[in-house]
């Protein structure tokens, strides 16, 4: 029987119902011509009896995607952004690429010109699916309203399952206005897509065998552990075989930083001991991590002495950068307990103790001078440390990209899961402020501290408008050294101190804050730092704390680009 016109709803309303069916509560977005029917439907679904969503109006579509990422990272749910076609759609691409490389589940829904106009260079027409395909997990054009339920459900299923990632839905205007009988769809199977490969018993046995014979095992813990919710499984695994574990930057919350088996952060600016020990261990167990170049340094020399065990849910990561002797392709929530069951209890205390002198060297040479300086201008490390002390590990850390990120991730504490938003793989400056907005909606009960440099602060500075309007309680710590500090550090170290366009003229941030009505304080004197941090944390709502940082504060330790991890330097020109 053909449904009567009363039973039919518009494609835009069908989208509302499909999003509701996926459990969406928060949408970050920005309206425009080709998405107007959807915004008209949102009018009804964001107020009154039919209210299903909170819509957060951002100030730039890039902000919508980073906010969706921050929301997803802290909540474990899929972040949603809705934008218009053309420039609205292309503005989301940085966020899409960022979410792809950092495995963050977001769904971007972009308006598109009607299908009858596609290919005519219509006003605000861009081939979004074409440009998004290589940088997204899945991109799809919903050409007719009857496809909406299926496409939205498939989008969320793909975004959140397996190795999560961004999905882009291109939504032509005709499909938004066509009338359709809404039939809910639930996609939980796609035959060409295997999100959770089965644990291979032979590989599990081989992995356990290698670990049981190891004298110097070392685990590298990545974000996969957090994405798989496998923190307990990880602890059981590490504790049974007494394995020290380093964490990647995105894996920092996968193992509490206070745990005795935690030996610090991996990578170019990670901890000294664990970087050196990667070149000494006999069995290296990579868990939910992808051997990024920032972790491995030169691949030619990386961990050549060790047998490599690689646990990852994404089979394309196996042997991509580092060749694995044993690979277990599965969700680590499944693979870890399977291996743990076959492990003998072990005591590697002698091996673990051997990290300590190197830790001590780093503490004396690098950490103490960075977090407890006694003279000179403020340093980034001490500001991070002061905030970390004051928040007692309860806060969500959001960073921008650059030195602020490296100092913040090094000196913050991570007792809880889902407490870090940072742009790891893409290194997206401008990520911090909008991601922090998203984090306040994803974890409304937690304090959100966002560290930014003066470069990154200005890259999505327009989102101060969103913060103002939403009174989003982002504690913004602006580490201002009047430089693009990380590039400046590289220029000093590797480019004969030729500071090409890294010095930056800054606005008066106090006036900027005033313009947006956001409480502001500046700190230049170390004696005032703790008080200023306490005041920031005690103030309800958003806050900008500007810290005048030493111009040439460098991040150490550092493995210079292209060098081996054991060539990590504790200071300049070592």
């Amino acid at each position, binding site marked *: 029987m053909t449904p009567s016109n009363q039973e039919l709803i518009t494609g835009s309303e069908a989208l509302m119902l499909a999003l509701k069916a996926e459990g969406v509560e928060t949408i970050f977005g920005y309206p425009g011509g080709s998405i107007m029917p959807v915004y008209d439907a949102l009018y009804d679904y964001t107020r009154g009896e039919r209210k299903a969503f909170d819509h957060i109006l951002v100030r730039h579509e890039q902000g919508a995607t980073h906010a969706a990422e921050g929301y997803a990272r802290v909540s474990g749910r899929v972040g949603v952004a809705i934008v218009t076609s053309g420039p609205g759609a292309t503005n989301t691409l940085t966020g899409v690429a960022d979410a792809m490389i950092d495995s963050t589940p977001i769904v971007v829904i972009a308006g598109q010109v009607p299908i009858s106009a596609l290919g005519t260079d219509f006003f605000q027409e861009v081939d979004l699916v074409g440009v998004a395909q*290589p940088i997204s997990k*899945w991109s799809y054009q919903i050409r007719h309203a009857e496809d909406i339920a299926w496409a939205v459900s498939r989008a969320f299923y793909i975004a959140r399952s397996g190795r999560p990632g961004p999905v882009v839905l291109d939504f032509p205007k005709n499909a938004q206005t066509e009338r359709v009988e809404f039939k809910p769809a639930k996609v939980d199977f796609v035959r*060409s897509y295997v999100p959770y490969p089965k644990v291979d018993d032979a590989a599990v046995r081989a992995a356990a065998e290698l670990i049981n014979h190891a004298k110097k095992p070392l685990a590298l813990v990545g974000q996969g552990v957090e994405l798989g919710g496998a923190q307990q499984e990880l602890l059981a695994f590490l504790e049974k075989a007494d394995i020290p574990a380093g964490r990647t930057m995105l894996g920092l919350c996968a193992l509490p930083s206070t745990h005795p088996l935690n030996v610090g952060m991996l990578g170019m600016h990670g901890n000294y001991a664990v970087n050196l020990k990667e070149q000494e261990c006999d069995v290296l167990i990579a868990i939910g991590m992808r051997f990024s170049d920032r972790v491995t340094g030169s691949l030619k020399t990386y961990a050549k002495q060790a047998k490599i065990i690689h646990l990852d849910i994404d089979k*394309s990561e*196996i*042997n991509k950068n580092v060749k694995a002797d044993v690979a277990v392709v599965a969700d680590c929530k499944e693979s870890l307990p399977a291996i743990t069951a076959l492990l003998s209890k072990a005591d590697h205390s002698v091996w673990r103790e051997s990290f300590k002198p190197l830790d001590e060297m780093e503490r004396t040479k690098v950490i103490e001078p960075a977090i407890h300086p006694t003279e000179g201008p403020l340093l980034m490390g001490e500001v991070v440390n002061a905030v970390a002390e004051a928040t007692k590990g309860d806060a969500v850390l959001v960073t921008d990209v650059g030195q602020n990120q490296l100092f913040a991730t090094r000196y913050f504490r991570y007792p809880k899961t889902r407490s870090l938003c940072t742009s790891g793989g893409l290194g997206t400056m401008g990520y911090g402020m909008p991601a922090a907005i998203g984090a306040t909606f994803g974890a409304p009960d937690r304090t959100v501290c966002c560290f930014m440099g003066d470069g990154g602060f200005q890259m999505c500075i327009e989102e101060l408008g969103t913060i103002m309007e939403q009174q989003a309680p982002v504690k913004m710590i602006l580490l201002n050294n009047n430089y693009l500090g990380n590039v400046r550090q590289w220029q000093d170290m590797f480019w004969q101190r030729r500071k090409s366009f890294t010095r930056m003229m800054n606005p008066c941030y106090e006036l900027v804050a005033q313009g947006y009505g956001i409480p502001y304080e500046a700190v230049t004197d170390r004696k005032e730092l703790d008080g200023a941090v306490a005041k920031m944390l005690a103030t309800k709502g958003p806050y900008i704390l500007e810290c005048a940082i030493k111009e040439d504060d460098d991040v150490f330790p550092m493995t210079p680009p292209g060098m081996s991890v054991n060539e990590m330097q504790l200071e300049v020109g070592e």
Partner: protein
Amino acid sequence: MEKLYTILVFSENIAGILNQVTAVFTRRQVNIESLNVSASSTPGVHKYTITCYCTEEMAKMLKAQIEKRIDVLQARYYTDEEIFLQETSLLKISAPAMLENSEVCRIVRHHGARIVEVNPTYAAVEKTGTTEDILSLYNALNKLGVVRQFARSGRICITRGTREQLDDYLAEREKERHG
């Protein structure tokens, strides 16, 4: 060591997959030597036959990255020994030149090529075989200066294995769908 690999890809019949597959090659700086896309023996499944010169390590990576695309069912790489392969080609030859020079017809016969049409202006010749067979005919005729047009298809192939890997995969997935 680089050698010629044939990569077979099976995908769902959804628009835009060819782009995604070729982008995997472009991003890793591997040139596609030939590409053929057609329906496969499984309804609704498209088959891509792609050849390229690369190392085995790269072939493995291409396979993994292609399979990572959501709507790709399966990708496999093969050396020439593991497949039956053919290409086809068409040549347009000047008819007067062919009549003047008996060598032209001798070469066509010697290569086992087929004359599909002759008229006062030209002859159309079809040759199916390996790249080498086809180029050998082309080079021989071209030396005589009689070739007006030449077109060569991409490679198509079927595998020599006794198992149909795509069927096995689809059967396995159907079991998982229901169980």
